């Protein structure tokens, strides 16, 4: 199908974007989730505010990685600077397909807030902070009307860290049924999982157990306790187990 008519406003700054947002407007970033909804007329905004003209940069200063919200997923995947956070690339491989990643933006993934977003799962394991036009928050922000995500900040990984991302999806490139993102370093463990339609979250009990010398199977079982239902639990246990093995847990 074709989208219903709308008014198109292209902006080149966050101030202009906020000013252009009327009550019934939608923000157009990469459009790889929004345009299917428009094409099927599940959404009929009266106005689209196109933020593709706002430059997005990937910078590393004092060890902190700053990713502009309008950075394309493909750009982050190729970024030499972001190589110090290999989990980003490991997760991005599973986000859609090459053709959607060349348009889709990093900020769009976060703002669209699909609970099965791989990138958000990876960012959760990496202790990301989110800067919006109004505030700075620790977890993925629930954006208020006329609030826009501007930047994502990642602290440096601990020395000697190994990371892995594993998911289970029915078909490649589709949203996953379950996924696990893992960061392992001496005296450090971070596990983020999602499954069963619930958004990514950390598995603190499993992380604590790993720091106390738990085995892969024990940690995976603890992570799986976060979700309900036999099947989702089995999936989380298995993707967590595989991710821990890939990240080099003995």
């Amino acid at each position, binding site marked *: *199908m*074709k*989208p*219903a*008519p*709308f*008014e*198109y406003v292209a902006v080149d700054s966050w101030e202009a974007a906020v000013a252009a947002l009327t009550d019934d407007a939608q923000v*157009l970033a990469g*459009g*790889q989730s929004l*345009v*299917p909804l*428009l*094409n*099927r007329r599940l959404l009929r905004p*009266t*106005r*689209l505010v*196109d933020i*593709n003209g706002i430059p997005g940069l990937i910078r590393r200063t004092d060890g902190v990685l700053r990713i502009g919200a309008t950075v394309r997923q*493909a750009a982050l995947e190729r970024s030499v600077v972001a190589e110090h956070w290999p989990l980003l690339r490991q997760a991005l*491989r599973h986000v*859609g*397909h*090459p*053709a*959607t990643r*060349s*348009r889709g933006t990093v900020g769009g993934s976060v703002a669209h807030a699909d609970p099965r977003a791989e990138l958000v799962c990876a960012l959760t394991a990496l202790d990301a902070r989110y800067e919006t036009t109004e505030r700075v928050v620790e977890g993925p922000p629930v954006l208020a009307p006329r609030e826009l995500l501007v930047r994502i900040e990642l602290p440096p990984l601990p020395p000697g860290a190994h990371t892995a991302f594993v998911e289970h999806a029915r*078909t*490649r*490139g589709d949203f996953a049924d379950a996924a696990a993102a893992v960061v392992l370093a001496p005296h450090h463990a971070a596990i983020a999982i999602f499954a069963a339609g619930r958004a990514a979250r950390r598995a603190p009990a499993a992380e604590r157990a790993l720091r106390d010398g738990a085995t892969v199977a024990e940690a995976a079982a603890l992570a799986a306790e976060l979700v309900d239902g036999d099947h989702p639990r089995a999936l989380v246990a298995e993707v967590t187990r595989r991710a821990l093995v890939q990240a080099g847990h003995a």
Partner: protein
Amino acid sequence: MSGFGDPPPDLDRPGFGTPAAAGDDPPTAPAVPPAPVPESPAATARVSARVNGELRTAEVEPRTLLSDCLRHQLGLTGTKVGCEDGTCGSCTVQLDGEPVLACLTFAIQVDQAQITTIEGLPPGRLQESFHEHHALQCGFCTAGMLLTLDAYLREHPEPTDAQLKEALAGNLCRCTGYAPIIEAVRNR
């Protein structure tokens, strides 16, 4: 109108079966005046882009998809439209050298950009290899396959089979079962 015998009115419009005569008529000159835009809150905009190396201009509504603009306004019907929600990859074109889904991009967004459609992809070993290995039957997915592969092989000239399958996972083919396509790329 009967079911038989009525000749379709516009079989000879540019790109519909017959190649557009290059440079002959202005690319956007329609035989009939452009349809009025009823109750649209949006005025049309003039978009210029370099399509297959040639500067082309079109008058588009904001909601006009790039795929529709290419097919209906520029007559480049090599770009196929399958699902129109980003699932099938048939409409893949290259925007500034990167593969994108033309059905998930608005024409109004590509002003001043470079676009390559299947009509602008230079004939080469990849196409010959598709032919030799029967990597297409109905051909509906082939334009998207070739444009995705062209961009991918530029960066990864020697992919493994697993990498190739990953790169092509966004392009659905309902005829070949994919094996001849992988074979064609490997033996190009």
